[in-house]
């Protein structure tokens, strides 16, 4: 068995591969530049390089789990052929009105993001289903066909259909799809009830619109890759990662590419959960994924990811359950400037191009990565294991106007910029944790991404986080999520407005069970699945409230135990909001089941033991930290073995990233090679 995780980002495409053969395991990782314009090229050349390291693999079972941003980019760049939307009579402007609210009302020149479907391609279907699923006005297929013909005449190449109350009765959407199919033939037609049948017309319509919008690009990309695999690696199975942290078959991804929209950062969370389960004793983790252009955090509690149904992509809601990721700002490319008399870092970013001045791609404005170099944290001669020489002089030139304005020296200004950057992050992380009812003192920080292991420890120090864990392969950690991810699908039944009886509860969960099992069966041959789990949830609230919470429920509830359901609700409400009302009536809005099918996956292995850190010592250098110069020992991570302990301030260099052990922290190499940084008693 050979399993490969592949993650395409804006700058780099990351690969990590693991093979179990004759009882021995072997793993390889690789970073290659992404190939925007034709991402498949980078995918194929990287895959070939990785597999070459395993010798002949043509006859091996190969499982590839691939994270792609094709769909995300298509939405953000709005580059797709026009599609049409069919909506219910009376509601042509559902996409224009959105939820009424403006993103930034304090901006007098605020504008709404234009809908993905222009008004001239939105058509009203003369039909109406009611809240209980009954039909007030029957649909007329001929009228639908007339709309479809007009849409085609106006240039539509695909269709989204979202009719009111279709989450309760999907009959009209199905009739409409057939009618459109007769007129338009073989084009993409997405219907809202099939993807995520929830109440709320704007969000549900957007799910169908997003799906239809990105479908052709995703299909084209998958065809290209599958073509390559069929020809060269006939035993390969390809899976695509999705926004809920799991994966799905390519067939599924082709039909429902909407599920990939937020998959990028979700994989890092999946990889973290796999690690934190093994480490044990970590009640709450905060992931810290910092790259050149973005920094994301996400909370994990009891090895469970936080799930959000209010995420967005390109200013559009993605209302299906996805891993809750909080973007807390730019990354190593954040630009350092003077804002009048005050030092500012970001929100402008040098991005991947031109990038920080030290990268030598033409950047002249100082960025956070330049400050790392100037503070001595990154060795310009040994960046990415020496594969990329950094230009420290260029970094110095770039920051000197800032130093002058501050009336100080280069190194002091560089450290000041890092302090400001860290405080920017604090200002975003603290409220994020507060919304989840968590104190920073009580979380373990897990850092990854190119700059995560350098800046994460700085952030930990500032936030009062006492423990930081650095995975073995921080810079390809999202790709490593692909090695451990499971096949995951969410299914929902909306019961909002129905009287929930024990029978309805039981029947509902039984139906969800069937749907989930069917879904899993369609993804892969049954014998490939190592283990299957079903997680069940209800979305509920106190009657009269207008906000709801998602609570995990056990088998008893699935069997129709209403009392257990209520008890679970009161308890979760108490935990989340510090109050509950055991007398209050509980109203259930949705039943949900998440199926998780595990595939063969690597198990972390001991890296060998040789307790002394000094054998990994490569030298020392002065770094600028906490207002002073400190001599830091520099270690080579590849030579650090389990049980080694070293004390901050120290630098650990790895071929693709640099790790900082701050003052006051000790660093222990654990049995599997992760670095565990802990705050010593002060």
């Amino acid at each position, binding site marked *: 068995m050979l399993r490969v995780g592949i993650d395409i980002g804006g700058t780099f495409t990351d690969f990590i591969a693991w093979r179990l053969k004759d009882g021995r395991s072997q793993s390889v990782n690789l970073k290659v530049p992404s190939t925007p314009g034709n991402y498949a090229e980078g995918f194929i050349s990287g895959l070939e390089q990785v597999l070459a390291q395993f010798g002949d693999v043509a006859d091996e079972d190969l499982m590839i789990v691939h994270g792609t941003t094709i769909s995300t980019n298509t939405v953000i760049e709005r580059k797709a052929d026009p599609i049409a939307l069919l909506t219910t009579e009376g509601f042509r402007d559902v996409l224009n009105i959105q939820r009424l609210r403006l993103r930034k009302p304090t901006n007098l020149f605020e*504008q709404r993001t234009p809908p993905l479907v222009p008004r001239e391609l939105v058509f009203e279907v003369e039909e109406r289903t009611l809240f209980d699923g009954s039909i007030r006005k029957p649909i007329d297929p001929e009228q639908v066909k007339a709309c479809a013909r007009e849409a085609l005449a106006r240039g539509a190449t695909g269709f989204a259909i979202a009719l009111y109350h279709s989450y309760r009765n999907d009959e009209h959407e199905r009739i409409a799809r057939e009618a459109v199919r007769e007129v338009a033939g073989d084009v993409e037609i997405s219907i809202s009830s099939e993807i995520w049948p929830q109440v709320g017309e704007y969000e549900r319509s957007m799910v169908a619109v997003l799906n239809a919008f990105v479908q052709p690009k995703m299909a084209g990309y998958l065809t290209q890759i599958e073509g390559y695999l069929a020809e060269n690696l006939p035993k390969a199975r390809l899976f695509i990662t999705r926004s809920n942290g799991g994966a799905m078959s390519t067939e599924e991804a082709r039909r429902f590419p909407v599920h990939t929209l937020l998959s990028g950062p979700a994989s890092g969370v999946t990889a973290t959960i796999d690690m934190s389960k093994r480490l044990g004793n970590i009640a709450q983790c905060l992931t810290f994924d910092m790259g050149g252009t973005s920094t994301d955090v996400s909370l994990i509690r009891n090895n469970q990811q936080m799930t959000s149904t209010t995420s967005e992509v390109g200013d559009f809601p993605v209302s299906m359950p996805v891993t809750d990721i909080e973007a807390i700002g730019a990354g190593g490319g954040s630009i350092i400037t003077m804002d009048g008399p005050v030092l500012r870092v970001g929100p402008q970013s040098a991005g991947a191009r031109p990038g920080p001045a030290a990268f030598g791609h033409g950047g002249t404005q100082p960025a956070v990565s330049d400050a790392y170099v100037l503070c001595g944290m990154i060795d310009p001669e040994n960046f990415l294991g020496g594969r990329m020489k950094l230009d420290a002089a260029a970094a110095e030139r770039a920051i000197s106007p800032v130093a002058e304005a501050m009336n100080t020296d280069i190194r002091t200004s560089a450290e000041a910029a890092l302090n400001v950057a860290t405080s920017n992050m604090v200002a975003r992380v603290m409220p994020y944790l507060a919304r989840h009812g968590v104190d920073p003192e009580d979380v373990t920080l897990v850092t990854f991404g190119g700059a995560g292991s350098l800046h994460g420890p700085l952030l930990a120090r500032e936030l009062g986080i006492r423990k930081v864990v650095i995975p073995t392969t921080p810079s390809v950690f999202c790709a490593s999520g692909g090695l451990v991810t499971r096949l995951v699908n969410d299914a929902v039944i909306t019961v909002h407005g129905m009287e929930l009886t024990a029978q309805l509860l039981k029947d509902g969960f039984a139906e969800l069970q069937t749907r989930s099992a069917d879904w899993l069966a369609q993804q892969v041959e049954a014998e490939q699945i190592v283990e299957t789990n079903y997680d069940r949830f209800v979305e509920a609230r106190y009657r009269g409230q207008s906000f709801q919470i998602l609570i995990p429920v056990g088998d008893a509830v699935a069997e129709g135990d209403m009392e257990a359901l209520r008890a679970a609700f009161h308890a979760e409400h108490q935990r989340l909001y510090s109050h509950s009302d055991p007398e209050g009536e509980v109203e259930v809005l949705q039943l949900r089941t998440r199926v998780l099918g595990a595939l063969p996956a690597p198990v972390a292995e001991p890296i060998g033991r040789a307790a002394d850190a000094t054998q990994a010592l490569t030298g020392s250098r002065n770094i600028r930290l906490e207002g002073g110069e400190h001599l830091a020992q520099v270690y080579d991570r590849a030579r650090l073995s389990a049980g080694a302990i070293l004390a901050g301030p120290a630098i650990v260099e790895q071929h693709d990233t640099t790790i900082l052990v701050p003052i006051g922290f000790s660093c222990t190499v654990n049995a599997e090679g992760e670095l565990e940084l802990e705050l010593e008693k002060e």
Partner: protein
Amino acid sequence: MDPVRTAVMGNRFSAIVEEASAIVHRTAHTTFVKLIQDYQCALATPEGEIFAYPTQSGVTVFVGMPLHTTLDRIGRENFEEGDIYIMNDPFYTDGLVTHMMDVTMLYPVFRDGELIAFGWSFVHASDIGGAVPGSISPEFKEFYQEGLRVRPIKLFRRGELNHDARNIFLDNSRIPDEMWGDFTAMISGMRSMDRRLNELCDRYGTNTVKQGMQDVIAFGEEKSRDIIRELPDGEFTFSDYVEAIEGDQHIHLCTTMRIKGDELELDFTGTDPQVAAAYNFIIGDRTHPYVTQALTYYLLTKDPNMPMNAGLLRPITTVAPRGTVVNAEPPAAMGSRVAAGTRLYDTLLGCLDQALNGGLMGAGAGMVGIIVCTARDRITGRRRVSTLNPIMGGGGGRNGVDGIDGADGRSGALRNIPTEIIEVETMIHMRSCTLVPDTQSPGMHRSGSSLLLEMENTDQEATFTVRGMDRFRFRPWGTRGGNPGRPCEVILNPGTEDERSIGKIKVLIMKKGEVLRIISPAGGGFGDPLERDPARVAADLRAEMLSPERARADYGVVLDTEGAVDMDATRALRDERRAAAAAPQGHFNFGPEREAYNAIWPQGMRALLATEVLKVPKSARRNVMDAAYASLGARGCAVDEAAIHAALDAACAAHDVPRARAA
């Protein structure tokens, strides 16, 4: 101002208040806090200047709220460690509370026995007692109808809960448990701010933290001054009206903006005396963020990275005569102050539009109606009060950009409730929720569209109230050649024999099958419609938001037989129109209704009347105002200074009060 300390402390302070605001939101009980987010908490210096204010949750309108007067009156020496004061008295706090529903707390933060900051927090309490559930009705004449008024008292004394203080609030609310839940949330938020500020002192030292507070305010002030300095010097006056509940005695709101160098004065002299309706509020003598809102937004628009604190308001002074709608005295009712606040926002926009070379924007729709329906609950069968939706209108056209369809800046934070959810939860069937073609007010940059809502009652009987409706009679004004917007319209049973236009809804009882259609106002256009890029006109045509007839009539755009713009014919028609047009009069285009009103009440006369009436003893002021207004209006010709004085002399004599004349 240290460049690094200012930046780092600014971020750390902001983290503290954002976290606290998130805690209040997460742990609060009521919908007002959870969904509408009508609450906030912030940190102020011991003097009373807010140095950190959240932006990610809660309301932004109170950024820079001055605590000084309330702290002076309580006496800072009376705050002990562990104390929390609670209050909802607008008059005693001189505007720290702008209406009684905003229950407010103050919390002293101590460091090693030294008072280093104050925590401030409020929630809009869903019910503080009074004559109606929710405590608010526009028709209330005195605050006594709006619930219980409490000046600052200690809710906690050295960490001990004062049960008496708690019970005063709870015993007078229809929902005491929820109220206490919200109070506990505020307390949690403020305790979090206390803890975090002390931790910051642990990390950086108390002096750095204290100095940081002054730095960030000074930074805010400097940025604010930089923007004001860019504005041309001068004096700009603008008047607008909140429409009367009955009759035509509309409430006059008047702002004069004086800009000199990097300072700016807002003078509300000329604004009507407080009214016997719940449209009043109070701001005291210091610059109050409730009345600077449009200006604050302008500052935040010019510099989105502006620190959120009282420094923003330092270059701004205000003059707000006591006894007017904007600085009311007892027994003024204030529950529906949002109507006056919205219109005052328009007057500031009007001033800024005059001040700025090239102008700023046309008026927004200028109303936010909250539609509330009482009918049977679909599930329980009990009668239930449901908020169906807010309804706003299209935003005004702006210098460089069109207005927003169906939504407007000042109330832009409100979300709607999905049609499907309304239908699941209530007996109302939504027939339509849509934009309305040909309602985007013409301009070089046109306004946003009106919004149409059509609701059918499926219960035996349903009662509708819509509070906050306005702009039925005076259109939102256009500017710089832009057309005025479309007024609000409410129609019962459209398309049937029973169809009738019913105007502003107070209470409407609908029978089964009856249909209510509301078409919101649209803001005013910006700039001459004949200057609008024909390509943009073509885009509106293509989107079917503009008819070919209106394209020709309003924009001078001619289409060829294919429906494309005929550029030559368009140019010719536009030239012809320009030649025929009269020279524009002034910046603003108010529309015929307001022009007719202005013909009776020329520029400055309503302000003069208001100013003169304020000199009348309080006891008779309202009666004298009503009598003088009625007699002046009845003359049927333009009011002048002499007529005002004569009318006031007569009214004072009739009410047996002396009439003080200006020297």
